[in-house]
């Protein structure tokens, strides 16, 4: 088959479409990648649960492929049979080796209490609207 110079851009477009289709097939866009989720949390408060009995709450500044983390304004909770031991830390580099769970959405009891607070607020607002 003879190709003229005019056909070249068409070929290139066809190629790039092929590559794109392959990428789409390999990565399911409907799915949420773990690294992507952690990346979205940079700058906000996160809750890290270690393999042992330690938990940390702090602002995520950055992380790497091992999920070592740089955290700021950290509160460290050590859960023991006697209760919780709390340590406050300014800025830390947390080794990713002992991390079990990274919590991004809400803080169990806190968020529950907060949602009730919002409901009460909404009801109050509604009643003031009714009066007005």
């Amino acid at each position: 088959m003879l190709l003229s110079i005019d056909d070249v851009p068409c070929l290139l477009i066809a190629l790039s479409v092929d590559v794109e289709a392959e990428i789409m097939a390999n990565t399911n866009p409907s799915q949420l990648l773990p690294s992507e989720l952690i990346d979205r949390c940079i700058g906000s408060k996160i809750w890290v649960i270690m393999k042992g009995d330690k938990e940390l709450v702090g602002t995520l500044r950055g992380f790497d492929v091992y999920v070592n983390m740089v955290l700021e304004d950290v509160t460290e909770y050590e859960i023991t049979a006697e209760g919780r031991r709390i340590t406050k830390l300014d800025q830390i580099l947390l080794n990713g080796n002992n991390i079990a769970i990274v919590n991004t959405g809400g803080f169990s009891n806190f968020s529950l209490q907060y949602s009730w607070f919002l409901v009460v607020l909404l009801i109050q607002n509604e009643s003031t609207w009714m009066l007005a």
Partner: protein
Amino acid sequence: MSGRKETVLDLAKFVDKGVQVKLTGGRQVTGTLKGYDQLLNLVLDEAVEFLRDADDPLKTTDQTRRLGLIVCRGTAVMLVSPTDGTDEIANPFVQPDGT
């Protein structure tokens, strides 16, 4: 050439379904699988952790706590199992006392 790398466990079929995850260190979590990667990092939504007995950390209690949207680190994941079609039964190998 081994061709395309295949995973032992195809997590795609568990996406948007309930899974139970056991982690090294003894923690146990259930939630809806929202995503994963090749290293077995998992994204779980509406995750619930089963709290353990303070005296016997090997036992889980009925007590739970809600965690919300979480990432389980692949390095800590020991077991992944779907909650649908899975039931916990009494240990059939335990010998009754006195035998």
